[in-house]
């Protein structure tokens, strides 16, 4: 499985037509300790750049954008009890939503780990 990145600090891991989306360690650190996370309802259709979730720190709410077009299939419900999982393991247990992706061609527009690190 390859992990891709966006300029808006999401990561996305693609396996077949399923994509797991989260935010990068850098983004999690910038946001600070999170107090709330919520995904769009399952079944919501999203295009690249649409909000798929929202995370909130003490001081602000931040949208998480869809790196790929598709349908929201799952929100990481562990985050409802403990949104700080995103701070603790941003690129692991702290994943945010799963998407069923509709257009694999969009992968070519995402960043590699090296490209993201160079931002």
């Amino acid at each position, binding site marked *: 499985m390859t992990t891709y990145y966006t300029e808006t600090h999401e990561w996305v891991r693609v396996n077949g037509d399923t994509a797991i989306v989260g935010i990068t360690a850098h983004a999690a650190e910038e946001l*600070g300790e999170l*107090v*709330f996370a*919520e995904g769009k309802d399952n079944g919501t259709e999203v295009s690249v750049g649409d909000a798929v979730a929202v995370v909130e*720190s*003490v*001081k602000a709410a931040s949208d998480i954008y869809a790196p790929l077009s598709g349908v929201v299939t799952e929100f990481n419900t562990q985050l*409802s009890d403990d949104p700080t999982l995103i701070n603790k393991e941003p690129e692991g247990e702290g994943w945010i939503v799963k998407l069923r992706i509709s257009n694999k061609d969009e992968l070519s527009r995402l960043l590699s780990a090296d490209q993201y690190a160079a931002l």
Partner: protein
Amino acid sequence: MSVSLLRTPLYDLHVSLGAKMVPFAGYEMPVQYPTGVMEEHKHTRQKAGLFDVSHMGQLRLKAKKGGVENALAAFERLVPMDFVGLAEGRQRYALLTNEQGGIRDDLMVARQKDDLFIVVNAACKDADASYIAASLADECEAIRQFDRALLALQGPEAVNVMNQFFPDASSMRFMDCIETTYKGHKVTLSRSGYTGEDGYEIGLPAEIAEGFAKALLAHPDVKPIGLGARDSLRLEAGLCLYGNDIDTITTPVEAALSWAIQKARRPGGAREGGYPGAEKIGQQLQNGTERLRVGLQPEGRAPVRAGVELFADETARQQVGIVTSGGFGPTYGAPVAMGYVKTSFAKPETKLFASLRGKTVPVMVKSLPFVPAGFKR
């Protein structure tokens, strides 16, 4: 054209402490340190937090003829507060009103031996200084001290820390304000703040501010606290943020700040009226208002923030209010907010509904503050 931001005398110190600097009211200010907003907030409630509030404006108001009594009497023409009756060494929360009864700014005013010591909001300080000076030009001189630093040390341990620098600190009561010295320099010390905790604010010359801040930070109970935690602390304490919760179109009565208008200035009082907007504010004090500022607690964990609309029921058809400040209360352990609602919906424990990202979330009206104040009265 680029907008150049001002820096406080503690800018270098903030950077050296690893602060994240953001633009605020024309200044580059620390929003948080590596500790993070959550921990900074809790530390202030448990120990002592050091805030740089040098961006705020310090003023002195002095009578051109006679003593401080003349300045107090003149100042009452601009605010609905009793200043003639304020004792020397005492500080009072005040509101500059406009002709419509709205609020130009909220401020802290202390009666000192020879003059009034005034602290105003950063974003309003130039306008306030000009307005006060022009309005009272015949009797008073308004002296800007915008180059001085202002620090706040807040939290239950603040008294023990301050006592090491100022032996008078522990004998002060909440809202006392004294002139004292630090290393031979004149400083103004008040027992007040913007967190709901016991604490102090210290006005001092810019050149000694960094040294003094470092001396405070050397104490194991003191940590630097940024604007992020300052906001969540004041929100839990139910304190208004000018520009969000109060502004030129909210009146003191609508803002639930009637407690700040003393009897002497109310209808029927010894010196009733005589300030901008007195007719409207006087009427509202007697008859009430159509809307009121209230505390709000959303159900669940999702914060509701400024601008979120409030409705009478789940259908979200009848709007009855709006959120003016909101976020998460780290000490309260839940989201907290305040806003304006129609008076018939202002009773604590009234259930309203917020429209949040296309959903309706139940929100309870709550009495303020969310976290009890720790003042030493």
